[in-house]
């Protein structure tokens, strides 16, 4: 096959008379653009969630037996979320450059994304018990609130069955949380990461 002949035919191909899209606004659909969009949505929903928690805490949190617990747990929750989302925002800002060398920018993006997914996983594991504690303390139902109050006042029953029941409940909650976290990561981040990893492998072959 003579590629030079083909190149001539390629160069002589009539210029397409179609016009370019006139709109310079709209949603982009590339893997990085979708990841950025998901990150932005995640950020907005988390801010809304934390804001709602803060409002409920201020309105209802001060009239319960567990007020101190609610405020302490909320303070830890907000500090951890604030730290994580500050990092997350810096990463989000770094992802907007497309004109860098493909391999270099992709490699950096993929490794940073992998790292951020792991940080996100750890962050989620850390804040799940804290968030549960904040909401239990705010809602303060007879069952859970009473349980915590009894524990804090040293009236906790020490029967093995109660301890087994507590451990099983906590384990199930954490497993369930991990399962939903995995689903969330898979649909929002991991599948795009796999696609980018495939392209990177192709480039580094």
């Amino acid at each position, binding site marked *: 096959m003579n590629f030079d002949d083909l190149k001539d035919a390629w160069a002589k191909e009539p210029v397409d008379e179609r016009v*370019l899209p006139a709109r310079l606004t709209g949603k982009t659909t590339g*893997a990085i653009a979708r990841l950025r969009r998901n990150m932005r949505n995640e950020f907005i929903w988390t801010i809304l969630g934390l804001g709602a928690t803060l409002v409920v805490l201020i309105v209802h949190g001060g009239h319960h037996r567990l007020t101190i617990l609610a405020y302490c747990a909320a303070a830890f929750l907000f500090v951890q979320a604030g730290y994580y989302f500050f990092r997350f925002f810096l990463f989000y800002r770094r992802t907007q450059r497309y004109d860098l060398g493909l391999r270099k920018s992709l490699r950096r993006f993929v490794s940073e994304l992998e790292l951020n997914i792991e940080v996100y996983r750890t962050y989620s594991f850390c804040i799940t018990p804290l968030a549960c504690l904040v909401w239990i303390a705010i809602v303060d139902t007879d069952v859970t609130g009473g349980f915590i109050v009894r524990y804090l006042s040293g009236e906790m029953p020490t029967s093995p069955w109660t301890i087994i029941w507590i451990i099983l409940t906590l384990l199930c909650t954490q497993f369930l949380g991990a399962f939903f976290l995995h689903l969330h990561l898979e649909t929002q981040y991991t599948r795009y990461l796999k696609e980018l990893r495939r*392209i990177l492998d192709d480039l580094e072959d």
Partner: protein
Amino acid sequence: MEKEAVFLQQVNAHKGILFKICRLYQDREEDRQDLLQEIVLQLWSSYDSFRGDSQFSSWMYRVALNTAIVYLRKQRHHDNFVVTAPYPDLADDVRPVRDEQQKLAIFHQAVAQLGKVEKALIFLYMEGHSGKDMAAILDLSPGNVRVRLNRVKDKLQTIIKTLGYEF
């Protein structure tokens, strides 16, 4: 507003590049339009980074190819029928092709079976870029480009034969 007008004027002057990239990377007209829109948006959002120290077309090649490579097609139900094996059996009889336009059409058919990076390489080669330029645009070493390009050319020849043509 003036910046936007200048940008559109520059892109229009090189729009052939964009149409060719879209044709290479997408099979359906609808997908090509989506990719074109995506590339134009990416060019516009990266336009501030173009400082004029290189030619506009060189910068455009880089952004457009980067976008095409990481672009994800919309998922459709009938995508399940996409043939994953790129090499069917060799054609029983190989027909020689003389007409240039027909050669080009067959060439496009063969290129459709290449990987994303392979498409970028063959596109830049067909556009007449030197190995050094291709290496700079794709962020590969010149040696790597040379080896890969030879591999892609061999692959294309094999695909064209499996389609039943020879030229």
